[in-house]
């Protein structure tokens, strides 16, 4: 019941606020990935481990924030239309085939560092955390209120 209420609340937040107050989630990749843009569906398939190789033949390395992180939850709603806990049954099936979910990091700073240092890495952060030479391949628009507690804490935007 609590999960359903949470899901409904997040969906209402995403759908109800005007675009003028929208924030962006940047999907970033390591500089060696030969991809300029990704669609939301391609991003979903990479995170679901259904697209495993990049066009150059190296393995994609998707990275998540922790399941209770607000940015993770908004990202999950935007890309998979489900909350992280709603995807556990999917990952149970993948485990049966020897496939595990993406690794998890504890912060957006750690996310950026991992993407910068790891070939094939793909992750997501708020714009204020972005730093080159990571590349932006997709921007997800979400209402400001949906990720209010994932703010940059005084960082320059």
């Amino acid at each position, binding site marked *: 019941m609590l999960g359903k209420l949470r899901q409904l609340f997040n969906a209402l937040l995403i759908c109800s606020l005007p675009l003028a107050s929208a924030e962006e989630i940047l999907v970033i990749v390591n500089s060696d990935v030969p991809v300029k843009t990704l669609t939301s*569906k*391609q991003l979903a398939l990479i995170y679901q481990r259904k697209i495993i*190789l990049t*066009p150059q033949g190296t393995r994609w390395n998707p990275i*998540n924030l922790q399941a209770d992180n607000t940015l993770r939850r908004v990202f999950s709603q935007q890309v998979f239309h489900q909350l992280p806990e709603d995807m556990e049954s999917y990952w149970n099936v993948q485990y*049966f085939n*020897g496939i*595990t*979910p993406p690794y*998890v990091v504890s912060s957006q700073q750690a996310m950026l560092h991992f993407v910068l240092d790891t070939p094939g890495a793909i992750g997501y952060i708020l714009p204020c955390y972005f730093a080159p030479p990571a590349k932006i391949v997709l921007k997800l628009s979400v209402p400001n209120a949906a990720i209010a507690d994932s703010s940059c804490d005084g960082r320059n935007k």
Partner: protein
Amino acid sequence: MPKRILLLSVIGLCLGQTLSSTCLAEHSEHDDSMPTYQWGRGLTVPQFNLIFGGYANITYKHLEQNRNSLTFDDLSLFITWTPHDRLHFFTEIELEDFISTDGIAKSNQTFVLERLYLDFLVNESTFLRFGKFLTPVGIWNVIHASPLVWTTTRPLVTESSMFDPHVTGLMISKNYLFSDQYLEIALYLDDSKDLDPLPAADEFENAFGGRINYQLSDHFQVGASYLGFKKRAYSSDSRNHLFGLDAYWKRNHFELQMEFAYRHADDVQGNETGLYLQGVAPLSHNFFAVGRYEFLDGTHRVDNVMTDSTINLGVAGFAWRPFTPLVFKAEYRFGSDDNSIAPNGFFTSVAFFY
């Protein structure tokens, strides 16, 4: 018997609560040097690109016309190895029905090599698979592990009397992306007679087949399967031809799943038609109602004897998933007039990934 099940359930819950508070969090802070264990996601050894895991299942049956039984009927070990970006090795070794109220089975009757294959990733949309893998017909057979399915009993149309659940040979799989829709096409060849290291008496001698799976949306997918095969148990040259359709819909924890199959052979193996329709509905947090209707008609192989019958049956029960890797199931199967194929009675089980 119910006391043993209750005791096992309590032990399982206590263990689950302990493990969930310490290990259920996802893998944190990518670290190449340290092995990590997560309940339901196995032991990961990043230094060697290895993952060890598996599942277990215990079943109790109270049948109308047969003896009651409590069986530790599945203990499965997975080993995954990814030595290269383009290579994925997987094996599943299983002990089946090795401890029951009827005694301890002999090891040569219980040890099963369920899967052993190597995937080569050709490109981002194509892979080749060589080895022993689950026959890609329908939905149930490729996800038949006890912690993944909602009932203790298996739909008749998906059982090994209809088609061998394993292929030993070569498969090519390719996927296509159309806007938000996803299409997977697989073609495969089986040569179990020459390739299977541990052959079973009732498996394929050889086979070829294909499957199309079309994910129309996040909530709905449909599939079609074809399988042409010759069984090892029959010396005639007659081949079986199986055609299948399936569909799966899921939204807000409600599920509907359907499979239909028709098998045809020109000899004593005859023809067979079967289907099931299963629904799942959430009753409260992690507690679900499950219902299934099944139909099977034609010539069925029972204990290596071909018999003709028509079966209509129902399954009604509940499933409780207190933690992601753990499920308790209880159901009643009714309506079957064929005790040898589908005995009526009460079935309950506990299954978990470790």
